[in-house]
Structure formats: C-alpha cells, structure tokens
C-alpha cells in the first residue's frame, strides 16, 4: 500500500467518519472479514466441542468479540472504544502468541492468536498495529491523549 497522499481526501463527506474513509475503508474491510470469520469459527467450536479445549475456544470467542467491536467502532468513528478494542487485540495477540509458543500444552487447539497469528499469515499481529497507527493519524486536531 503505497502513497500516503490520497488519504487526505476532502473532509466534506460528512456522513462517513474519518476513521472509515480512504485507507480506513481497507482497514474496516479487513476487520470485518476477521470479525465474520472468527465469529463463524468460534461459534462452531463453542457449540460443538467446548469441552475439548475451553481455554483455546474461550479465547477464540473473545477474539471474535474484539474484532466485532473494533470493526463497528472504526466504521462508525467511535474513536475511544476503537482504541480500547484494538489495544486489547494487540495485547491479546502478543500474550496468547507468546504463551502458545512457551506452553503449547495449554493450547491444544489453535486460536486466531496462536503463534502470533501464524495460521492467518500474521495478519492478526499486523492489524492492531495498523489500527492504532490509523487512529493516531486520523485523530482530530487539538485532541491529544
């Protein structure tokens, strides 16, 4: 994804929040795909074989919820909730990624975040970093927190 310039398109499309315009649409689209895929997968796992690996499947469900919240908040421009959701996601992928490598026995079944998202081309690891960078980039002038 080259070219930083075209993100600075006209801010007069008032109905679309800044977090969901230009490159933000790509971000929301990727989040939506992960929200949908993670929910579908977690739902099946929870219903069918929860008892096999409660920790791994519980984490899958948590990841799915986080992706849904992040998608909605980025799309609607709820910056604060989006920042929280994306931060939780980053912490989740780092902690679960490290634990799954350090103690594989605790994670007998794969989650989205296992091995830092290796099974998903490391997208789960890259996505929150891009998300936070994008939230920072689009923050309104004067708002510094």
């Amino acid at each position, binding site marked *: *994804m*080259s*070219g930083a310039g*075209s*993100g600075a*398109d006209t801010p007069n499309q008032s109905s*679309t929040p800044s977090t969901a*315009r*230009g*490159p933000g*649409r*790509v971000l929301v*689209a*990727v989040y*939506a*795909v992960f929200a*949908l*895929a993670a*929910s*579908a*997968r977690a*739902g*099946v796992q929870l*219903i*069918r074989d929860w008892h096999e690996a409660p920790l791994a499947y519980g984490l899958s469900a948590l990841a799915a919820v986080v992706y849904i919240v992040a998608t909605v908040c980025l799309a609607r421009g709820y910056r604060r909730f989006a920042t929280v959701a994306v931060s939780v996601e980053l912490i989740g992928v780092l902690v679960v990624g490290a634990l799954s490598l350090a103690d594989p026995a605790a994670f007998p079944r794969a989650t989205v975040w296992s091995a830092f998202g290796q099974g998903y081309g490391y997208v789960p690891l890259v996505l929150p970093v891009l998300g936070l960078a994008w939230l920072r980039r689009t923050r309104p002038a004067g708002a510094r927190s």
Partner: protein
Amino acid sequence: MVIPLALVVAALALVLVVWAGVFALRDRPVVLNQLLGAAVVEVAILAEAVVAVVHVVGGAHVREPGTFVGYMFTTLVVLPFAASWAFAERTRWSSVVMVVAGITVAFLQVRLLQVWGAM
C-alpha cells in the same frame, strides 16, 4: 461438482484481484466493468452454494458442516459489501478494498474445500 466450482470461483476471484490491483497501483477507483466482473464471481459463488445444498440434501457427507455454512455465508457477502463501498469511496482505496475482497474469496475457497472434506 462442488470442488470444480470452488476452483472456478477462486480463479475468477484472483483475476479480479489482479485487475483491481492494477487499478490500485495506478491510483484509480473501481470502475463499473469491475463490478460486473465481481457480479460474475458472485453468480459462480451462488451456483457453488446451490450445488453444495443439493449435495447435502442428497446425503453427501460434509466433514465440518457448521464451519462450511459459516464460510459459505462469508464468501457470499464479501463481494457485495466491497461493491457497495466502490460507490461510496471514489478513490484508489475502493480498488484496494476490492483486492482484499478477492483475496478473501479465493482464500475461503481453500478453507471451504478443507471443511467439505476434499483436501
């Protein structure tokens, strides 16, 4: 019949990825012809879904039926979603969204074949 159709869908989706990718690199938004291309892919996906249902009704064994339905649903909604954004976002980023959507559809065909039990 599900396996060849999934391969056709994946191939068509990848053609769309290359087409939209060229547009993204040239700083151009999605054009109407690409939406028609996406519609062709969508028709192929619908055919795949119908054939899968017919097979299941006919007693075919699916390795992971729940996951198959989930992925099939995702595959069905991705392109219409990207197409609707192509109208709202008249910049190169609509082309990038189309690239992401095409890659998603192609990747999901691989997963669909796995949970169908073909791989």
